[in-house]
């Protein structure tokens, strides 16, 4: 049984990293495609002899669009870079909102594909948390994956953060119609989550209407 849990945990970790990388590379390829076509369009316009002063606004629009795409791609790279570095150390002091924002940015594509809105509602000025951000992201991912798979299109999932006493909380609130009751990929998904939350010294509770609340002590395990 222990081996089965270990296997399921590894499968979840691989699926998590695989999903993040697949989503990331797809987004980047889209930005690159727009940059490529935009720069190609500038070349086309020059070859067509569109070189009068009247053409300058059109050139500036295209250049702005290239800059916008580079900005979006850079933001995505920053998220992926931070996500990767969170695995460098086991325990660190981190900002919960930044940790969740990064995860949502990297997973947003999968929600969008299903026409599900993935949004955030963060309490500002949260205290820094001393814990394992990588495990927390994996834990939140395991719930988000399940809810994205289960919700029908035009649903919504809000990831809300908040602080109470010496703890912070992540609340995952799905809204919409659920097509499937339970979409956990592994039989031992709840056991894995229990294991994660034990490592983080926190607590998982179910709120109303399929809400999930993950609570973490601010000062760690």
């Amino acid at each position, binding site marked *: 049984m222990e081996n089965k849990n270990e296997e399921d945990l590894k499968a979840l970790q691989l699926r998590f990293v695989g999903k993040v990388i697949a989503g990331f590379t*797809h987004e980047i*390829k*889209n930005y690159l495609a727009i940059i490529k076509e935009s720069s190609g*369009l500038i070349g086309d316009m020059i070859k067509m002899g569109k070189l009068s002063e009247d053409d300058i606004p059109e050139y500036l629009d295209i250049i702005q669009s290239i800059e916008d795409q580079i900005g979006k791609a850079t933001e995505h790279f920053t998220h992926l870079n931070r996500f990767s570095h969170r695995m460098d150390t086991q325990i660190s002091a981190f900002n919960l909102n930044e940790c969740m924002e990064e995860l949502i940015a990297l997973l947003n594509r999968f929600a969008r594909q299903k026409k599900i809105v993935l949004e955030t509602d963060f309490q500002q000025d949260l205290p820094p948390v001393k814990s394992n951000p990588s495990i927390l992201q994996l834990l939140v991912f395991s719930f988000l994956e399940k809810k994205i798979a289960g919700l029908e299109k035009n649903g919504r999932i809000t990831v809300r953060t908040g602080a109470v006493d010496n703890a912070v909380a992540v609340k995952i609130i799905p809204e919409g119609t659920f097509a499937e009751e339970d979409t956990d990929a592994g039989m031992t998904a709840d056991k894995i989550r229990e294991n994660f939350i034990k490592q983080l010294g926190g607590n998982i509770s179910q709120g109303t209407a399929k809400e999930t609340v993950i609570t973490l002590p601010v000062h760690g395990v």
Partner: protein
Amino acid sequence: MTEEIKADVLLVDDEEQFLKVLSQRMEGRGLKVDTSTSGEEALEKVKGKDFDAIVLDLAMPGMSGIETLKRIRSEHPDLQIIMLTGHGSVEKGVEAIKAGAVDFLEKPADMNKIMEKISEAKRKRVLLVEKKREAQVKEILQSKGW
């Protein structure tokens, strides 16, 4: 710039900025371009107009590219569909070809390559339409006993 091609093309992609620049570049090469930002919209467009080629994104919110491809092919088997996508797996390419796509290009794609594929698609479509007409003429002649 590549040689001009006269063809009616439908571009389907959920990225509006991509549609805007790609259609401008294609129009500069003589193509008549229509655009759709979803599979559902593309299905409506092909009902009212004949296109020589459709350039279709694979990963779109809602109705996926594969689903759109299958639906269009089932209602308009003559339409030539080229998949253009950021999803570069071999499995997806095979799935698209099996579902009836004539080609599979990966984003960012080379403009000359896209134009080449559109030109090929148009040629195939013209042949199919000619064959269909020939068969219709034969049928009429036979039914009249000529």
